[in-house]
């Protein structure tokens, strides 16, 4: 019977698709057993298998952006942050900033060598920064006018304008060797960091071993394997005892795995809603529409900021693993605590809307103002379950207020087209205050993924410029705080509210009970790699 055959074919077809998925999951795990021993008991004492990070698209090249979250593993940086986020020396032995804040002079240690035995000199540092500036990658070095070597171990950076946050760039840029840098560098990194690359199977795993020539203290673990697994596969691997650390999604947070303990790290890895700040008005140079009439209304943005119940989002969408977020930089030294809102307050939100003239005239439960319906799309990346939960959760929360938010999942490519004219659920969170400048300064409007909503406020601009030209960190931080809220205006939810920040994610890891992962910092954006920041300090208990 023809129908029967078709049915069997359909069955085979379904099982084939499913089998494809199951087995692709399995294959990824195969190398783990080949290369590291499947069981903790059998694994040699100084080896570690982790499933924590995603594979960076740019490879292992700091020039292209590798290492800006977490440890660059293979390279080392001029400065680094201690567990309290204070800046300390790494390759550098000292650094000075000139009176006018335009010249930074850095002296580096003379005993650093690359893993191929060549000495690391000022020339390599100059080469790294010139190359990074030319590359036009995610690392923005436009403000660097000149970098030159004064002698073999002294480098002078000249800036176009004062930039108090320049040290953050020195923290995040791994130094590459001039003599060994070519187009294949991203696949064969050579550096002066604690580890060197042993093997990289794209899409599967990265194996590193301790670099015996490293100038710092030798890491306890001589060989570390990073498996690139999907979150559920990482969880399964942890359960099977195949990995010593696994990054897991919030939904798995209440699962018990024997021999492993759950580590919930606080982060500033935040998620929030970016609102287009201007009314629909033309297009960008490459033809993307700008502006949204509904979100351009201050009352709408403020009402959402006040009405949204952040704690409920944390317990609902994040399973309780996270904290409410009020700005892009909660609890950082440059954060203004006055920006914390008394949220989940529907009455005030409704009052704000009513005062601004929003009213439900046709009785459909959605407010109108001059014929404009309070309705807009909230775009989230379709592949991200957490952002989906947040987007749908917020839409549901806000609906009783009379604002109709339509959550829509899109690909990152589509989001790039839509992000100037639609609200988008983005995530940021960095150790570098320059992020505030990037997100809120009017000169960054429409540039890359930064100020996509075309926010602008002259007072905020001025505060942030003052912060950048400040010569001391305290002075800079006081201006950063004023940019958020100075009592009258600012970019936080209290005033202009170009964003509604929602939550800071808790970063969840299952960690072998016997493993000591040291003191972890508050984690920035980018699940996985930030966790490895102090990897050289890890040891067995």
């Amino acid at each position, binding site marked *: *019977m*023809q*129908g*029967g055959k*078709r*049915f069997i074919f*359909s069955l085979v*077809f*379904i099982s084939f*698709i499913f089998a494809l*998925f199951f087995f692709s999951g399995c294959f990824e795990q195969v190398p783990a057993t080949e290369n590291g021993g499947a069981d903790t008991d059998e694994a040699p004492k100084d080896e570690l298998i982790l499933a924590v990070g995603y594979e960076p698209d740019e490879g292992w090249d700091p020039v292209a952006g590798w290492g800006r979250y977490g440890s660059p593993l293979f390279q080392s940086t001029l400065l680094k942050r201690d567990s309290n986020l204070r800046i300390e020396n790494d390759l550098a032995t000292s650094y000075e900033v000139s009176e006018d804040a335009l010249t930074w002079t850095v002296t580096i240690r003379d005993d650093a060598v690359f893993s191929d035995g060549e000495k690391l000199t000022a020339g390599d540092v100059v080469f790294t920064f010139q190359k990074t500036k030319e590359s036009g990658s995610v690392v923005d070095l436009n403000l660097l006018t000149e970098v030159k070597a004064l002698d073999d171990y002294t480098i002078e950076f000249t800036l176009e304008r004062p930039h108090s946050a320049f040290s953050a760039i020195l923290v995040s840029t791994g130094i590459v060797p001039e003599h060994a840098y070519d187009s294949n560098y991203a696949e064969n990194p050579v550096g002066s960091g604690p580890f060197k690359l042993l093997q990289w199977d794209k899409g599967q795993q990265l194996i590193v071993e301790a670099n015996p020539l490293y100038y710092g203290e030798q890491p306890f673990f001589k060989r570390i394997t990073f498996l690139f697994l999907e*979150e*559920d596969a990482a*969880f*399964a691997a942890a*359960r099977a005892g195949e990995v010593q650390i696994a990054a897991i*999604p919030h*939904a*798995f947070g209440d*699962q018990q795995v024997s021999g492993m303990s759950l580590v919930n790290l606080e982060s500033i890895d935040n998620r929030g809603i970016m609102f287009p700040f201007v009314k629909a008005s033309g297009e960008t140079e490459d033809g993307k529409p700008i502006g949204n009439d509904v979100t351009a209304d201050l009352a709408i943005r403020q009402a959402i900021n006040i009405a949204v119940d952040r704690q*409920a989002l944390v*317990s*609902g*969408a994040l399973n309780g693993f996270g904290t409410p977020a009020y700005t892009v930089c909660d609890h950082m030294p440059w954060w203004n605590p006055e920006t914390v809102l008394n949220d989940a307050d529907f009455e005030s939100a409704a009052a704000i809307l009513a005062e601004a003239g929003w009213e439900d005239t046709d009785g459909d439960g959605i407010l109108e103002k001059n014929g404009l319906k309070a309705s807009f799309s909230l775009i989230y990346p*379709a*592949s991200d*379950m957490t952002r*989906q*939960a947040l*987007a*749908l*959760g917020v*839409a*549901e929360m806000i609906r009783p207020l009379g604002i109709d938010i339509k*959550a*829509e*999942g*899109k*690909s990152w490519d*589509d989001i790039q087209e839509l992000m100037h004219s639609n609200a988008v659920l983005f995530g940021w969170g960095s150790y570098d205050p320059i992020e505030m400048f990037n997100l809120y300064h009017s000169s960054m409007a429409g540039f890359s993924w930064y100020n996509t909503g075309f926010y602008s406020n002259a007072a905020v601009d001025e505060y942030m410029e003052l912060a950048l030209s400040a010569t001391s960190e305290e002075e800079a931080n006081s201006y950063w705080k004023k940019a958020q809220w100075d009592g009258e205006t600012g970019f936080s939810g209290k005033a202009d509210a170009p964003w509604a920040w929602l939550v800071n994610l808790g970063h969840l890891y299952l960690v072998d009970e016997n493993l000591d992962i040291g003191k972890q910092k508050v984690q920035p954006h980018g699940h996985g790699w930030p966790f490895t920041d102090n990897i050289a300090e890890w040891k067995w208990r």
Partner: protein
Amino acid sequence: MSKSGISYLAAGSKEVRLFKGMNLRTKTLISIGLTVVLLMLIIAGNFTLSADNISTNFEIKNQPPSAVNLFGTDWLGRDMFTRTVKGLNISLAVGMIASFVSAVIALVLGISAATLGKRVDGLVTWLIDLFLGVPHLVIIILIAFAMGGGIRGVIVGVAVTHWPSLARVIRAEVMQLRSADYIQVAQKLGKSRWWIATKHLLPHLAPQFFIGLILLFPHAILHEAGISFLGFGLSPETPAIGIILSESMRYLSTGMWWLAFFPGLALLVMVRSFDILGSNLLLLFDPHRARE
């Protein structure tokens, strides 16, 4: 139980046991009736179940099946039963439009191949071979991707890939009909090609066409689910079966079996119903197979 009944049982067919004592035609009609009722129920469910059931409600998330939530709830507290029924309806709609378009393409190409001369025949046969030679899923992914995802991409993708086998059947059927006496006579009487096609060919083709159409359904539905499962289809907040299944994969390791089990089963049941419907209708309509 009569002796003949026992021998029927010995023959081993479950269907026989179920429909004991009825004649073939009644059995076929009952099968058709049952599947139609089932499909009607799915469609009715779409209109009776409130969309509020699938709005996010964190208070009741991750609940196993119960009397209130027959299929349990997912990680956003959405009722899986409602999601499944709505998902099946999306699949139905996609399947319906896509297979109809597909069947029309098949009809047009099949008839033109058989009637418009050697060159057209060669071209159409080549097209059929071409489309049969490439895996459907690959073409659908390409088309859905090129059209930027969404329901339109899925429908177009499914529609333009599912016509070849039906087109081949129709072409063969028309070839056979053309040599029939009454068509030769009609030609000799000077009737136009158009007249012959509409008055003589189409009525004969109707059963093949409709059954082909119905049998395209399960295919189209599975491909819709497949493409959504792979993430090239609908937006993830839409209640589509493929999306439900791919989401559930992530939660299987935490023991939330109901997320995959019921929607998967429901999809299987619906696809199988169409299959039974199609083959039984074939038995009814096709005089050559009336005794099967």
